[in-house]
């Protein structure tokens, strides 16, 4: 085997810096993040878990239409936004609420899509977060375009593009990786391999040695990490972002994690997987292991715990207060945003609806 292959193929084992018992391990290529970063990350994890819990509760109360939870994947969520700078871009999916909020987007605006009063609730330019993409893998080529535009202007922007294991099967995944490689675009493709695409387990999605092995087929370096180890993820993703920023072209990272809950609240996971498959993954919880590690290192004092709890409480309150069951909606919005200048046809249709509603009210 040549050097090219060694450069592009992922390491044999997923990178793990802190194991599930909270024990740190040395790694030949990656170093443990600083204590401050790990403590900040811990706070974000606690906040992220709370977002998942609170959103679940809001669904049960009918205040969200649907919620695809990232419970158990919070380390991926938090790491994917923590490694970015302000000028970077994040391209999330429907499952990446926690990543988006971690990046600083207003939580209510983040959940607009899932509440159902509009499609995308936040201004993508504010925190440089693209609208959450529902059609799988389609956002990945957009990420390449955004990165390429920045590069043409000489900016050192990096784009973090998220997708799931299932989405790697779509043709758009392939085209995005190839375009990024050929144009040497600074995109970090980050696959959260949570073992399921709704009901379909990874084994029916791909029989490749790993999803990170797809990189070499595009000339893109692939790497894999334990998706429940925030430290390892920060190291691997941080490294990938740095390489991309330094002109190293696109990078592919696969995180091995697990979708602890059903696909969404509307899904019934009991139909396709036994509970005892889930149990060991609860042992690998991303929060627990970091907590254990921080405790052992005596980094988890009351102040940190209080800070985490406060952040979590505040975001939960925001969600509870902001997600009214019946948000104000304006039917005129239906016609207002398709074009910079409304077409005569849409003006006519908007008037039709306005008249109809006026008649109904009268």
């Amino acid at each position, binding site marked *: 085997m040549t050097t090219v292959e060694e450069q592009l193929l992922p390491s044999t084992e997923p990178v793990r810096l802190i194991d599930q018992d909270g024990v740190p391990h040395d790694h030949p290529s990656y170093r443990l993040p600083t204590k401050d970063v790990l403590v900040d990350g811990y706070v974000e994890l606690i906040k992220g878990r709370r977002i998942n819990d609170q959103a679940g509760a809001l669904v049960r109360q009918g205040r969200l239409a649907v919620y695809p939870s990232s419970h158990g994947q919070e380390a991926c969520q938090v790491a994917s936004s923590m490694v970015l700078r302000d000028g970077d871009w994040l391209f999330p999916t429907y499952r990446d609420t926690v990543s988006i909020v971690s990046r600083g987007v207003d939580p209510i605006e983040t959940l607009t899509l*899932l509440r*159902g009063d509009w499609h995308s609730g936040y201004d993508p330019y504010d925190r440089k977060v693209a609208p959450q993409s529902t059609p799988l893998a389609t956002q990945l080529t957009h990420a390449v375009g955004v990165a390429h535009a920045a590069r043409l202007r000489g900016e050192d922007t990096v784009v973090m593009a998220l997708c799931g294991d299932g989405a790697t099967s779509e043709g758009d995944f392939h085209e995005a990786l190839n375009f990024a490689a050929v144009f040497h675009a600074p995109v970090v493709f980050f696959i959260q391999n949570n073992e399921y695409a709704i009901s379909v387990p990874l084994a029916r999605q791909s029989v490749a040695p790993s999803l990170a092995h797809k990189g070499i087929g595009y000339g893109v370096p692939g790497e894999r990490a334990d998706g429940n180890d925030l430290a390892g993820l920060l190291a691997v993703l941080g490294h990938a972002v740095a390489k991309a920023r330094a002109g190293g072209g696109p990078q592919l990272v696969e995180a091995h994690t697990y979708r602890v809950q059903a696909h969404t609240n509307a899904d019934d996971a009991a139909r396709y997987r036994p509970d005892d498959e889930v149990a060991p993954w609860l042992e690998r919880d991303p929060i627990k292991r970091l907590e254990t590690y921080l405790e052992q290192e005596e980094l988890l004092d009351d102040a940190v715990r209080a800070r985490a709890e406060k952040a979590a409480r505040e975001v939960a309150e925001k969600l509870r207060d902001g997600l009214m069951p019946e948000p104000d909606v304006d*039917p005129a919005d239906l016609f207002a945003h398709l074009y910079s200048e409304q077409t005569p046809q849409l003006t006519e249709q908007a008037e039709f609806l306005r008249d109809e509603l006026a008649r109904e009210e009268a």
Partner: protein
Amino acid sequence: MTHVKISMAQALNQALRDAMKSDETVLMFGEDVGALGGVFRITDGLTAEFGEDRCFDTPLAESGIVGMAVGLAMNGMRPVVEMQFDAFGYPAFEQIVSHVAKMRNRTRGRVGLPMVIRMPYAGGIGGVEHHCDSSESYYAHTPGLTVVAPATVADAYTLLRKAIEFPDPVVFMEPKKLYWAKEEVDLTEDQPGIGTAVVRREGADATLIAYGPTVPVALEAAEVAAAEGRQLTVVDLRSIVPFDDETVCAAVRRTGRAVVVAEASGFASVSSEIVARVTERCFHSLAAPIRRVTGFDIPYPPPKLEKYQLPGVDRIVDAVDDLQWEDS
């Protein structure tokens, strides 16, 4: 056979089950159609009953699903595939337009493709974006496809059975919001086949032309209109391609007035076609131009706003009121 009370979802499931029982070349596949039974449970229990070779999950790639079905159909099978929601059929658009629709013609009839593409379609279920599209016009505009849309439980069963037995590819539009409505039906009763429209209600004053999810709304509107003194005919198209000009035009000629009711955006759509072709054929029987009640020309709205987009009873009755009754 006695009548049973079942939902459209159950009738579709039964149709698949019966088709798979009677013909072992029938295969059902797509995303989450195996163990889960499909996100709408249309394929519930099929893997358990027929095994993983007959009903199976694929990798998550719609173009691959349809392309693989083309190959299976070329080689002796009768594949039925599910696009999880009809907007997720768009990645397969090239396969559908360039191959599914054209294979038979390309080969002078040597390679027919007996396959069915099932599309849970249209709205009214509070789905977020991309989950409530009405894409039938794209397929109806594509020569070589057969496009059907059941509106009743009995038709769901019959039309799916007939679609699976059909020698050519059928795009099968399943109105999502009707999945759970139950009716008392005898599934063994023979219904008209593909290509035939049915008059669901007779009335002398005007004709409502509907298909799929708008048929029950049209029938309800006809009730309301009747209470207000207008008798409406309601035609359920059932089959968009081929189109049953005879039944539709006969109704319009009898009534002299018509309203087309469809959920899809109106511009350059199946409803435009209905207006155009019926006007071409029945011009001198028309007392007023044919009106359309369709979705606006906008992306399907988010859940909290969808009620404004859906053709409702009032909007239909208003359109009927608008048919220049004074002038006639």
